[in-house]
């Protein structure tokens, strides 16, 4: 009888210990954390048969919160801060994207916390732009550790049609529908 009790005890211990161990390890790896945006750039690329234009903004702000195994990041950038090197073009962009009425581009990213320690992050994105909201699933961002900072780079495949933007034209030829946005941001955790 005692032997069967001892066997049962060992069986129960063997069942509990790995589970508790895994839970403790999981909790330590995925503890709550806040991500603070240090600096970075967002650039969009515009193509026209006669022009290839890149416009960059250095005015993005962001914050990230990781909790219960998931991370939520919010990045915002004023539309009017994109500089293509030509004032006229930038004002036309603000007009075409309703940038005065909707002055911010908001990007919300949602991804598993476990990916914050890996080379690639696959985030579900919700982008609010020009009064419209578009969703992009599993967009890949590369994560590079640089000392205490983490550099996140990637491209969001925005298109004009996703946001009901009437494509600006030059010499009656409209720009390409694709306006990919290149993200290059440095973050640190708290």
């Amino acid at each position, binding site marked *: 009888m005692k032997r069967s009790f001892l066997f049962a005890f060992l069986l129960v211990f063997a069942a509990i210990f790995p*589970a508790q161990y895994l839970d403790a390890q999981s909790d330590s790896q995925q503890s709550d954390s806040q991500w603070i945006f240090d600096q970075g750039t967002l650039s969009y690329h515009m193509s026209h048969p006669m022009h290839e234009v890149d416009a960059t903004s250095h005015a993005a702000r962001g914050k990230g919160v990781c909790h219960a195994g998931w991370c*939520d990041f*919010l990045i915002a950038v004023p539309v009017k801060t994109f500089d293509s090197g030509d004032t006229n073009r930038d004002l036309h962009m603000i007009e075409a994207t309703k940038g005065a009425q909707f002055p911010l581009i908001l990007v919300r990213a949602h991804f598993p916390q476990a990916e914050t320690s890996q080379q690639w992050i696959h985030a579900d994105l919700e982008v609010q732009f020009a009064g419209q909201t578009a969703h992009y*699933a599993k967009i890949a961002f590369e994560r590079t550790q640089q000392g205490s900072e983490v550099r996140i780079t990637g491209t969001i495949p925005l298109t004009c049609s996703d946001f009901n933007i009437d494509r600006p034209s030059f010499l009656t030829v409209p720009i390409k529908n694709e306006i990919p946005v290149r993200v290059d941001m440095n973050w640190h955790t708290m």
Partner: protein
Amino acid sequence: MYLQPEKFVLRAAIFLFLCLMPNRMHAQSAATPAERQTAAQQPTSAQPQSDSQPAPSSQQAPSPESPLPNAPSPAQAPASASQAPSLSDLGFTPQQTQGDPKLQAELNKRTEMLKIHQRLGLITLAPMAATLITGPMAKAKGKNGEPITEPSNANLDFHAALGGTTAALYFSTASFAIFAPKLPNTPKHGAIRFHEALAFVHGPGMILTPILGAMAYSQEQNGQKVHGAASLHGPVAVATVCAYGASIVAVSWPIHLKFWEKK
């Protein structure tokens, strides 16, 4: 009432197993690192889904409950949604987040006027070039083939009509740029500066050219050889057209002609 030890052990084992099941599932919910790495190497399949929003007067922080197509269900991350950062966390001033419908209306009007400016400007190029070409032809030949200094009425009328059309279109084009709404606190840089600077060349040129043309015509009608400032009618016209063409190229610069490039 006491259970037999074997049954007690069996029930305890089942109870513990059931209790531990969710923990194990939670611990195994994330893919293994190897699986995730494999997924990372694969190309991204972005499938945007656009939602139309009513146009608010100001841009609000999006609802944390906004559904994402491939996002986990709220049951998977209930606390995460409640702690998601909001726009107020980013430190923007109200001026930066508030929409300005009045400014948007100004921008819309500005763009409309500049579109017309662009179209009319291109249309103007045609009679301008024709006027330049017909200028030297205004000097006709006489019946015996000898050149005559005074232009024939037919050629001169055609040249003058083209010049008048050019001037009318030119000043219409200019008015759409001059009267387009100006936006405060927008220092100009880039190609638009050259475009505007060249207007100080072709603008006076477009005023001077017809005046000098009229002077030249008057001198010829009086049997005089064209002289003085009137003799500059041709050179001024050429300089005006060159500046006008350069202005079009400047606003289009840098031109990237890709049609002969292989992708």
